[in-house]
């Protein structure tokens, strides 16, 4: 049995998926942390009991996918209450959400839908992040989305929107390197320039994942269903150079492979972080 490792800056974790829970509980692989989608643990399921058991040995990061901070209506107070109750039980190392909206007019659409980036939507998003941070009693990290459409009227560049959001609300930024690559490819912008535009001091976590190429429409789809591709590893190395070592997550949500594959990806991320440390110290 391995002992619990302290949270180290620069640690690498994996997304915890149900088919891997038993193996992780039995083999206790060396991992910096486990990340779960908060909404999957808000009901009193046996899965919650498993997570509470694993929590004894691993730091946990709660990744919200449904707060819908970008909705042009009031936040769902009931959902905030449930989220806070989960935070109090799990005592997570990080709590994160998305720069997106997913519910409007009483319908939850289960997707991270894009916002137009305007002064008005920035005001709204800041107000909602302030409210959520107050209701949850935690600082949030907000993740940059992957996107497949942009609005005709959206005058503020996304990294500028994120920067201003962090400045006004004190929230951190979850820099999803794969999302930058996906959106960069879909909208023909330079991912490196995007990375350079993010404020170093706000970065609290990095996400890495695979994506799918929809060749018929020449679009990258962020499906978290394969290994991280080489250009995303290169972008990660650049992110390490710019931001320093940051807790990093390997996300894998569809076409789930054996746990060993996720651990292998996590190991590679850790190697890159080690290389960065040596280079930075030289």
């Amino acid at each position: 049995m391995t002992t619990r490792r302290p949270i180290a800056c620069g640690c690498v974790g994996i997304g915890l998926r149900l088919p891997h829970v038993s193996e992780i509980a039995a083999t206790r692989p060396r991992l910096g942390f486990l990340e779960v989608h908060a909404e999957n643990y808000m009901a009193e399921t046996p899965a919650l009991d498993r997570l509470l058991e694993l929590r004894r040995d691993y730091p946990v990061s709660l990744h919200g996918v449904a707060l819908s901070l970008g909705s042009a209506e009031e936040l769902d107070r009931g959902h905030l209450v449930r989220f806070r109750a989960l935070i109090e039980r799990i005592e997570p190392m990080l709590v994160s959400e998305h720069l997106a909206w997913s519910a409007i007019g009483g319908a939850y659409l289960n997707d991270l839908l894009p916002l137009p980036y305007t002064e008005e939507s920035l005001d709204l998003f800041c107000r909602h992040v302030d409210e959520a941070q107050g209701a949850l009693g935690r600082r949030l990290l907000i993740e940059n989305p992957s996107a497949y459409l942009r609005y005709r009227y959206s005058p503020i560049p996304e990294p500028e929107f994120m920067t201003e959001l962090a400045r006004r609300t004190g929230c951190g930024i979850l820099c999803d390197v794969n999302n930058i690559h996906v959106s960069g490819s879909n909208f023909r912008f330079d991912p490196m320039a995007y990375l350079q535009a993010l404020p170093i001091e706000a970065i609290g976590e990095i996400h890495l994942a695979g994506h799918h190429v929809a060749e018929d429409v020449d679009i990258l789809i962020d499906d978290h269903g394969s290994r991280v591709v080489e250009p995303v590893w290169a972008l990660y190395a650049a992110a390490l150079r710019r931001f320093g070592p940051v807790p990093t997550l390997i996300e894998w949500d569809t076409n789930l492979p054996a746990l060993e594959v996720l651990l292998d990806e996590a190991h590679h991320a850790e190697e890159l972080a080690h290389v960065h440390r040596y280079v930075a110290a030289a």
Partner: protein
Amino acid sequence: MCTDMSLLLELQMRLRRAVLGGDTAEIVTAIQGEGLDPAARAGIYRHHAFATLGDALQTTFPVVCRLVDKRFFAYAAHEYLREHPPHSRCLVEYGADFADFLARFPPCRKLPYLADVARFEWALNIANTVRKVTSLQAETLAAIPPGEAAYVAFRLQPSLSYFASPWPIDTIWQANLEDEVPPIDLTTGGASLEIRRAGEAVVWRRLDPGTFAFRTALADGLVLAAAMSAATLRDPAFDLTVALRHVFSEGLAVGFVVSPKQEIPR
């Protein structure tokens, strides 16, 4: 253009309609083409919403899916989603009225037991997402003045469901977990079922008519005297003392109120 909140709300309502399979014409004018038809861009989000919400329904209703096959299930889920998008942000809570939808869905008419299989799977899902809470001890009732005992209404374990079908739903369900579905005799009659959480497991069993009527009445919030009337109608030999003893020994009651105003049917 989006210059104030009402315009952002309008934009989001338009994209919502497109994502839920409605008209995309109202949203495409707000989307940049950038080398691709704006409707195709909105379609990527619609595809994702239908695929993932359909998967969520399939997870909750696996035997319904098996009974109708995956392709038909996807079609039924698609029609359901358009009319009944989720309200809760937790997907295990999606599908409360899927059984009612299937009961009304014309293409399902040839499978008269399908909606009841969905009701059974929903009850299993409820039991799987609600923890057992501390049970009421029988001694607690000693404090109730004898004249008020008839007006006690119990609160039962939140994981409990009572559900009766003219079809042998539990047999159908169990058989469809097997790789090779054994023959099922649909003429064996219906089942009156109690479904609940027991520790980490979800359990169910058939109840006799009197016990089923009694416990269903209690679950509906009827007072003891009314529940007894309901049970005696189904089983003239119904024994209230024995039935109450079992309610407590099985830990089903978690609280009670005295409701003297509740009308008791004769």
